[in-house]
């Protein structure tokens, strides 16, 4: 029982890493209706900025994080302007392909700027392992889970209670109608990408002490984030958290009770099961098309 409990906790901790990044992914999908494949690489760039400010320049973490967020948001906005915006009027497939290209460009650019080696990132939430009976908890992981939940709540509030959030929802429902109602599309687009990049930076800073900082750190996690988003429901903020946690749980439990050899395959099986039974994702809304 203890082992089962421990592996469930491990799964939830792992899932919280996916969830925190899925939030940023979902905000782009919910507003722009596009799958942002490069989200993992945006996280990587954010982690490198944080590495520069926090480790190399030795700035306090409360200064390093905002600076990293600002730099990463700027990178994201330039990408949006140069790569994505020209394709908004074209097919979504083209946009998806473009995000794949951006992902490769970012990875290679990072290798040129920061090099190809891995860098250590000191833990920002030091503390001993917490033991509750035979079950243990890692403080850094608890923080990730906590930050993820807080981010989700804040995002939900932002989307429902603020004018900009409501405008973002309007854009996600019908771009043309939202534009006709006076919503400034360009501003909303920039805010969406900016928020997504900000969240990716936070995710990068939270994950960096655990996984280290290196140019391909977003690759493996990026795939899991896409799965989490689809499982939870594309565009749904609670769905992002649920999807991330489920993917983490399935990975951990499958690895424990079946085999670690196929650990990477269990989330894909979960994805298939969800798609077959609920194509819109667990918390996703069914798309109703007027015919």
């Amino acid at each position, binding site marked *: 029982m203890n082992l089962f409990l421990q592996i469930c906790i491990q799964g939830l901790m792992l899932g919280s890493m996916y969830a925190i990044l899925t939030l940023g992914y979902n905000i782009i999908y919910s507003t722009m209706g596009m799958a942002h494949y490069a989200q993992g690489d945006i996280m990587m760039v954010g982690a490198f900025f944080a590495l*520069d400010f926090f480790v190399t320049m030795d700035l306090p973490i409360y200064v390093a994080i905002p600076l990293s967020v600002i730099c990463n948001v700027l990178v994201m906005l330039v990408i949006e302007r140069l790569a994505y915006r020209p394709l908004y009027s074209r097919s979504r497939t083209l946009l998806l392909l473009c995000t794949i290209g951006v992902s490769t460009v970012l990875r290679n650019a990072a*290798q040129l700027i920061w090099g190809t080696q891995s860098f250590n990132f000191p833990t920002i939430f030091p503390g001993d392992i917490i033991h509750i009976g035979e079950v243990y908890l890692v403080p850094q992981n608890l923080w990730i889970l906590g930050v993820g939940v807080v981010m989700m709540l804040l995002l939900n509030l932002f989307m429902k209670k603020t004018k900009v959030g409501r405008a973002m929802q309007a854009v996600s429902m019908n771009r043309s109608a939202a534009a006709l109602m006076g919503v400034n599309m360009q501003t909303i687009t920039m805010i969406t990408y900016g928020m997504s990049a900000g969240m990716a930076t936070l995710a990068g800073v939270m994950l960096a002490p655990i996984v280290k900082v290196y140019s391909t750190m977003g690759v493996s996690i990026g795939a899991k984030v896409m799965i989490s988003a689809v499982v939870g429901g594309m565009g749904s903020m609670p769905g992002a958290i649920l999807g991330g946690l489920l993917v983490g749980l399935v990975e951990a439990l499958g690895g424990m009770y079946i085999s*670690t050899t196929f650990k990477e395959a269990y989330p894909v099986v979960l994805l298939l099961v969800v798609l077959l039974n609920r194509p819109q994702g667990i918390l996703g809304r069914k798309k109703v098309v007027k015919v």
Partner: protein
Amino acid sequence: MKTWKTCLALVLVLSLLLAAGCTPSKPNPTDPSKTNSTSAPSKNTDPKPSDSTNAPTGQKQKVPIGVAITLSGDNAETGRNFEAGMNIALQEIEEQGLLKDYELDLKIVDDQNDTTTSLNVVNEMIFNTKVKAIIGQIYSTNTLVTLPICNENGIPMLVPGLNPTFSQNGYDYFFRVCGTNEGGQTAGFEYFIKDLGLTKIGIISETSENGQTSYGIAKKIMGSYGLEFVCDENFTTGDKDFSTQVLKLKESGAQAVYTTAAATDAVVLLEQIRQVIGDDILVLANGASESNFLELAGPELAEGVLYYTVWTPALQDQKSVDFVQKYEAATGRQPADVSARGYDATWIIATALASMDGYDVNAADFSAKLADAIRNVDYTGLQGTFHYDDVGEAFYTMKLITYQDGEHVVVRDN
């Protein structure tokens, strides 16, 4: 609007420059599509083909040597360490005036640690660049596909990879410039089982070809002691969550664990092992031999971690001490074992060439003659004395090293 865009672009460029300016270590960009040509400086660099088998006296012939190593991607550091070792060898060869008749013309190309790229790179080297020998490749997955091509075309290949199967296929043109995984693992498991009397040993191996080859060898060695792994787990390269594997390891009560993980993965795994199991388990990690392991792990986490190698910066013989000094002066950091492989490979080629009495580099059988010269080479390098046997091996045993207070310490010298 245009002004706004210009401002945004300027800010971005500035932020990137700022980031690049405070990069923890200087980047070393490598364009995989381009070939770097590194030559040992020489007074006369013009190759003068001749009709006879001996070049005219006083003129040095350029000998094109292909170097196929990984210089981009996750494992680029390994390639760079190898290249840095080669550069020191080149400098020494020039200083000592070893090559009277030849000039080494190294064609360094990035294999991107990818089998398809490796095939293209080696084919290009053999058929277009017309190299006379190839040094490479560091990663066994790539060597497995390129070694047969070199062998079929009579191009000697000096391989810095540890996969023991290379020498089991009867390749005439294969020469290894390091030890094998089998020798290393034998040292590790002998230490666990014979020296320490441990019986509960676990393994966490990568699902990659390299990881599974190492796993097969480890299983065979354990079997020779009548033992089986008490915990036998896998992971996919790049996966940074080892919680399940570590929990299973803890449940198995293993006293020691062997992992095939590379440096970054090994550090993440080690952190999770220490968090969950503590210091009561010995760790033997392939990745611990890599130069960035200590940097990433730090002396505290690295304490007591074991790895195997033929050469380590801890060796105190004069040659090793000199090499470490020169390497640190040139690169600003400690060499890795792979640096010694690059150094020795370059010296082996040069020593073999020096024994060829100016044989015409354009002669059809030049590569065959070079292979013969390598086979008969008598060279004592950083890793020891190279006397190749019939299957192209020079060393069958390896040293077992551990970290103590951030230093490499030899535990077992087989």
